[in-house]
């Protein structure tokens, strides 16, 4: 298969249809998570999203500004402790603490970032790694009332529980036993959504563009009038504020914060999540957060007997697996999961950008393989493979093995590609009607369209069924 299966012009009807499918998947994921998962699994999702925000914060510095920041665990810790202290000791509401946390995080970012970012090189890495190491010891200091505020080595609990007010009980999943974590899930999703929106806009703004310019060519950016230390420090401070926000969310979700939660190991988890997700991509943080939390969960369940020795994931070796993943990704997939996904999706669909006058920059016909097209065959195979793999995955689900379980889950997910088969089938039929394809294309194209549509209907139906059953 060469080229893409589907070629669409940006903002054309087909492109919009494709986008609707993506939004539908996202909505389905969000709506089903609090309904289908067990409360402790929703808790993991919450943690993944919180990690996602923190990784996005790291990404602002590492991915978008090209500086190395290894100490965001400390900013998370600061946000978490400020929140815990204000909510528990001063009886503030979480939303009242929010601006305080952002400002404190921002100021800490300026204090740490300014000295390190005046000079080029790895100095930010140096400062931030020390920052990550120092933070857990600082919360234990008895003087200045620090330990009283932070709870010292015992940690600090927040007794006020986050419960949905009665007018929000209609939210999916928010009722009865699982209400708590599901309600927190919705709060966190809302905060993540707003954050993503704000950061997207920030990167498109003037200061945001300056930050990107510095990453690509520092001296060049300076020549065009970017004040390097200021731009870098502001970006780092915004990132620190975002890290503190993740800390607030942490406290909100767990209701308990302790110094040993915010060690250098958390900072490394953030870096691993960043690399796994994709350095320099906005979605990378969320993807990375999901993977760090769930891979950690999976490795803990690994237990491989090797003769006398049992390889046990529920011990020190869990960290080694993470280290190995980090090195393997750095070698073989430096762009992370997001770039791998982009690689696959460009095989599936190619969006041709428009010129300012609204015509595609390259005529779509240029991508058309004409009479030689084998797109219909590929689409047909895809439309058949989806249901078959779904069935295989279903059968494998009953095998009581961790690796097989993960594999089964992955196989079942292939059905999500059904709309692609449907789209390609429709396109090929249209091309055939225009006399642009041989007649032999008609059979597979029709099959791909119909089977793909069935698969897609099945996905929608299944999701609706799960939704209605539990809601």
């Amino acid at each position, binding site marked *: 298969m060469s080229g893409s299966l589907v070629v669409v012009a940006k903002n054309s009807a087909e492109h919009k249809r494709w986008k609707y499918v993506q939004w539908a998947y996202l909505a389905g994921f969000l709506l089903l998570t609090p309904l289908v998962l067990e409360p402790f699994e929703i808790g993991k999702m919450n943690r993944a999203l919180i990690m996602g925000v923190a990784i996005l914060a790291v990404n602002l510095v590492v991915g978008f500004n090209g500086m190395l920041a290894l100490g965001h665990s400390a900013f998370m810790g600061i946000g978490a402790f400020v929140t815990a202290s204000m909510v528990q000791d001063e009886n503030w509401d979480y939303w009242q603490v929010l601006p305080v946390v952002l400002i404190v995080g921002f100021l800490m970012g300026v204090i740490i970032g300014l000295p390190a970012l005046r*000079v080029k*090189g790895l100095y930010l890495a140096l400062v931030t790694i020390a920052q990550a*190491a120092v933070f857990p010891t600082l919360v234990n200091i008895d003087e200045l009332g620090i330990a009283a505020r932070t709870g010292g080595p015992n940690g600090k609990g927040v007794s006020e529980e986050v419960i949905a007010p009665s007018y929000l009980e209609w939210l999916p999943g928010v009722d009865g036993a699982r209400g708590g974590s599901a309600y927190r899930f919705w709060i966190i999703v809302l905060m993540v959504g707003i954050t993503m929106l704000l950061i997207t806009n920030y990167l498109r703004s003037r200061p945001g563009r300056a930050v990107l310019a510095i990453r690509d060519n520092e001296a060049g950016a300076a020549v065009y009038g970017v004040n390097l230390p200021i731009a870098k420090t502001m970006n780092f401070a915004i990132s620190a504020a975002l890290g503190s926000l993740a800390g607030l969310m942490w406290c909100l979700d767990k209701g308990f914060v302790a110094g040993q939660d915010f060690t250098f190991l958390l900072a490394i988890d953030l870096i691993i999540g960043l690399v796994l997700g994709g350095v320099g991509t906005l979605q990378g943080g969320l993807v990375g957060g999901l993977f760090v939390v769930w891979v950690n969960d999976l490795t803990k369940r690994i237990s491989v007997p090797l003769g006398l020795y049992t390889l046990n994931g529920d011990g020190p070796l869990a960290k080694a697996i993470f280290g190995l993943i*980090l*090195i393997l990704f750095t070698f073989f997939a430096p762009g992370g999961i997001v770039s791998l996904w982009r690689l696959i999706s460009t095989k599936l669909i190619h969006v041709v950008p428009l010129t300012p006058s609204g015509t595609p920059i390259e005529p779509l016909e240029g991508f058309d393989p004409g009479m030689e097209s084998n797109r219909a065959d590929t689409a047909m195979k895809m439309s058949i493979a989806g249901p078959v793999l779904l069935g295989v995955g279903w059968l494998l689900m009953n095998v009581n093995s961790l690796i097989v379980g993960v594999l089964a889950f992955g196989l079942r997910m292939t059905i999500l590609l059904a709309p692609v088969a449907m789209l390609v089938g429709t396109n090929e039929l249209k091309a055939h009607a225009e006399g642009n394809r041989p007649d032999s294309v008609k059979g597979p194209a029709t099959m791909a369209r119909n089977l793909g549509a069935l698969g897609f209907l099945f996905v929608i139906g299944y999701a609706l069924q799960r939704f209605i059953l539990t809601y």
Partner: protein
Amino acid sequence: MTWNFDILPDFIFNGLSLGAIYGTVALALVLIFKATTLINFATGELAMLGAFLVYVLHMEQGIWLWLSMLIAMGLSAGLGVLIERTLTRPFDPADHLPVVLITLGLFLIINAVAGDIWNYQVRILSNPFGKFPSWVPSVGGDRFIMVFGSRLKYQSLGIWVTLAVALFVLGLILNRTKAGLAFRAVSSNVDSARLVGVHTGRTLGFGWAIASAFGTLGAVLVAPQLGGVNPNMMATILIYALAGAALGGLDSLGGAVLGGIMVGLIQAVAVTWGGVVVFGQLYMSILQLAAAFLVILIVLLFRPSGMFGTRRVERV
């Protein structure tokens, strides 16, 4: 507030010997930084692994301590060469992120594997400078001599002498051997080094080897102060060493040693002794790590190139 100067020499001696160890580890950092402008975050874990090798060779196999140390230094040097060859050489040295990620990954793997093999309990490792050897005439006790009315531990003396000898050997290697000359050339200008026929890869491997050996030396010397060896032993030492390297200048070998010693003194004298003087208690020691952090911040604020580092000019 009473200025208790009687106990000051104790703290100075302690600071100087801790500082010498930080200097040794800082040297391991700077050797790699000088050649590649990279900070090897796995330095501490490689050193810890070296200390465990000594533990296995000496405590478990009963090999003479100093011979075990030499073997362990040789083995960690080999490991350093291996890491350079397989994990860092494929990457463009101008792009810092991948190699830093690799060293972070190594940090996790080495720490976890050591934790899996030896678990996280502290294991006693013999002190190379526990008691004076019998041929030394007794001047005070069998573990210390009296200087300025304070006890100067044999351990401190031993650490200083060891570091001095190691530095002398390092100086000989760098200034009197062809490999050392090549290493200095690669550190100074990689392209030109290649143009005079230096194999830059092998030379960087040589740098990793010396750095790993020095890290191991530092870890073995610090073990008695920590009560023994354990997989997390180097976590804080690495931060002190980073502070020392920053203070001395990240590209100055002599600066690394002096910077490390100064961080040791700051830790022992300014924070601990100062804390005793001001508050009459030892609890300020909780701030020792924070002091290292402050040192890094202050150095960057006032003299980013450190005390002895060179100012690099970036060309467009």
